[in-house]
């Protein structure tokens, strides 16, 4: 009897202990996640997006050359996620306190602001001052970052103007002048379309290349503050003058100017269609220069590519030569994972990214170019354009939250295929704005 009771007690104890240990393992895994930065202290982990091949490549070059000291102490490790799931990834990792040392800022600047408010994002103004390298960043780039992100919270790995790239050869073959107005632009598209060329190449899967056309039209028609008014609640996207812009872009779609299957065209396909001469025009930021300079991909030749500002809407209140400017895909540094070694990386990147990026990929960044770099004529054109642009505009979703950004980008393809009316589109985005 006594032994049975002992056995019982042993069994009870055994089961109890194994349960407790099981639970402890669970908790243990949880708590190590809290210090994600620390657990990866050995590596300079960078979270970027799949679509962008420039930044990781230049960082790798730096790690093997100019930043070798920093990389020896803390090796570079690049992780990528698709751009469309970046916001989600950042929120999940931030929620667990597991953000990597450096991460691409989300598609909506509002998310970076939220992360900054909750102490996840390093204040670069103070840090770069301490490191003594703040003079290595272009002041104009810092201003743009501050305007968008509410503070100097992200590194300007790219500094772009956006506009329409066109195939000079196709334009010459079809006797098309570079269009200055929206009417000329649609006429040019019609000419290209009737000669069997897709007039405009755009990624409906990403959505933003289409909504950029809406915002371009809005800024040109209603003026520079058109979307600021929406953000401030003074105007609504459902107002007739705003719906007109969506209707103008939907009209391009209904005439077949984007080609077939716009909703399934991803970023690379859109760029390839332009570079193989299948499409005559491409709305894109100057980050695409890296693809243009890739001789294997670029079958039409860099000398055949021209760059023009967004066409002016007749009688519109906007400026001439309107370019949208932004900092492309900037990166934030995690405040929680910041330490001296990250600091060493940070100063090295700030000092060298500008010239290395330009020399290697023709990438124009917000960092100063410290060494003489020979650039090709196309890159030179873009640099001159940036230097000459006195006033630039933002993009459609720049002042929206994540929900409205998603609503606008996922519904852009249905808008141009006609399965959603311009009114429905603007209404959907407006109701997603908080």
């Amino acid at each position, binding site marked *: 009897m006594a032994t049975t009771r002992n056995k*019982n007690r042993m*069994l*009870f104890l055994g*089961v*109890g202990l*194994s*349960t407790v240990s*099981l*639970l402890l393992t*669970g908790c243990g895994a949880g708590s190590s996640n809290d210090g994600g930065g620390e657990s990866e202290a050995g590596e300079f982990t960078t979270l970027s997006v799949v679509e962008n091949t420039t930044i990781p490549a230049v960082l790798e070059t730096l790690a093997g050359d100019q930043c070798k000291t920093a990389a020896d102490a803390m090796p570079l490790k690049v992780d990528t996620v698709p751009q*469309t799931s970046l*916001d*989600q990834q950042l*929120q*999940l990792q*931030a*929620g*667990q306190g597991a953000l990597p040392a450096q991460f691409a800022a989300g598609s909506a600047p509002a*998310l970076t602001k*939220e*992360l900054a*408010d*909750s102490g*996840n994002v390093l204040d670069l103004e103070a840090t770069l001052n301490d490191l003594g390298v703040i003079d290595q960043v272009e002041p104009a780039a810092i201003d743009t970052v501050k305007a968008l992100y509410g503070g100097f919270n992200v590194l300007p790995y790219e500094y772009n103007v956006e506009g329409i790239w066109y195939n000079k050869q196709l334009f010459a073959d079809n006797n098309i002048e570079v269009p200055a107005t929206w009417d000329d632009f649609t006429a040019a598209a019609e000419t290209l379309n009737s000669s069997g060329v897709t007039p405009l190449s755009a990624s409906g899967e990403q959505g933003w290349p289409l909504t950029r056309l809406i915002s371009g039209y809005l800024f040109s028609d209603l003026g520079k503050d058109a979307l600021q008014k929406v953000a401030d609640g003074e105007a609504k996207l459902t107002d007739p003058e705003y719906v007109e812009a969506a209707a103008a872009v939907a009209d391009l779609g209904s005439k077949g100017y984007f*080609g*077939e*299957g*716009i*909703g*399934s*065209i991803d970023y690379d*396909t859109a760029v*390839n*269609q332009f570079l193989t001469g299948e499409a005559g025009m491409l709305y894109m930021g100057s980050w695409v220069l890296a693809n243009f300079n890739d001789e294997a991909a670029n079958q039409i030749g860099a000398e055949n590519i021209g760059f023009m500002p967004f066409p002016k809407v007749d009688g519109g209140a906007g400026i001439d030569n309107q370019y949208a400017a932004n900092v492309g895909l900037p990166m934030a540094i995690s405040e929680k994972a910041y330490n001296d070694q990250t600091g060493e990386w940070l100063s090295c990147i700030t000092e060298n990214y500008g010239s290395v990026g330009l020399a290697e990929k023709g990438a124009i960044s917000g960092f100063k170019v410290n060494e003489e770099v020979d650039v090709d004529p196309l890159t030179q054109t873009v640099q001159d354009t940036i230097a000459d642009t006195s006033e630039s505009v933002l993009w459609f979703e720049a002042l929206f*939250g*994540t*929900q409205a950004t*998603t*609503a606008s980008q*996922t*519904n852009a*393809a*249905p808008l141009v*295929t006609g*399965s*959603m009316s311009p009114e429905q589109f603007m209404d*959907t985005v407006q*109701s997603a704005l908080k």
Partner: protein
Amino acid sequence: MQSVLGDKKALIILLGPALLVYTLVMLVPIIWSMGYTFFSGNAISGFTFAGTDNFTRLFTDPEVRTALSFTVRYAIVITIGQILMGYALALMYVFILKKSSNIIRTLVFFPVVLPTVAVALLFQKMFEIAPQNGLVNSLLNGVGVESVDWFGSSSSSFWVIVLMDIWRSMGFYAVLLYAGLVDIPEDMLESARLDGATGWRLIKNIVLPLSMPVLLSSIIFSINGTLKVFDSIVALTNGGPGSSTTPLTLYMFRTSFAFGDYGYGSSIALLLTLLCLIVTIFIFRSSRRDLTKD
């Protein structure tokens, strides 16, 4: 056995650990999530009490209405498709192919073991239009029909999803129902045949009633699985075009983790849970009534 189960201490030892783990990994998060429905905010910016705002929003949000109607339509169409195709296949295994059904059974079951994402990519390529035509559009072009942008409109993408999910899962239901059909005693079928019942009458009067229990469990499986669909749609259309093929689960996931609103996301989850509960209770009830009738 009686003495072991009568012993309270033994009961605690046997059930306790499992119950504890179950409570911690299932019940606590469920209750936690229900608590979230009264808050807004997320893990980054913190939570604020929102009262019943999330529930009011649930009833006025047009996105919820679209997602709910898609979920219900999807569940009904797929359940009918899965069960009908599965039952037809099972009947074919038992009555037509008989002992030689092994190879067909394996082939039809094969898609079940393939990863969902792989199947979705396969269908994406098959129904592709850009950058080049997929198999389906090439076939259409071959017979002189113009290419169709299958993922460009909500109705055509809905039918591609339906086709894919039925193809992917009918093998599973065929095997499940086959197991039920082979359980029907051979002598009963034999005597029915002697009484002159063949073909459709045999199936309607003998096979169908006798396989009712397994058919009902299949329906419950199917409807609960389809109401909670997530992976196949994310991989195939990602809810598009626009949000027209977004089920409640995907909308819940986006609201919580992409739009950073855990509270409203939890409210949508609650709605989905209630939906599953009501459907299951409804089916259980009707099945119980049938059994008493027998």
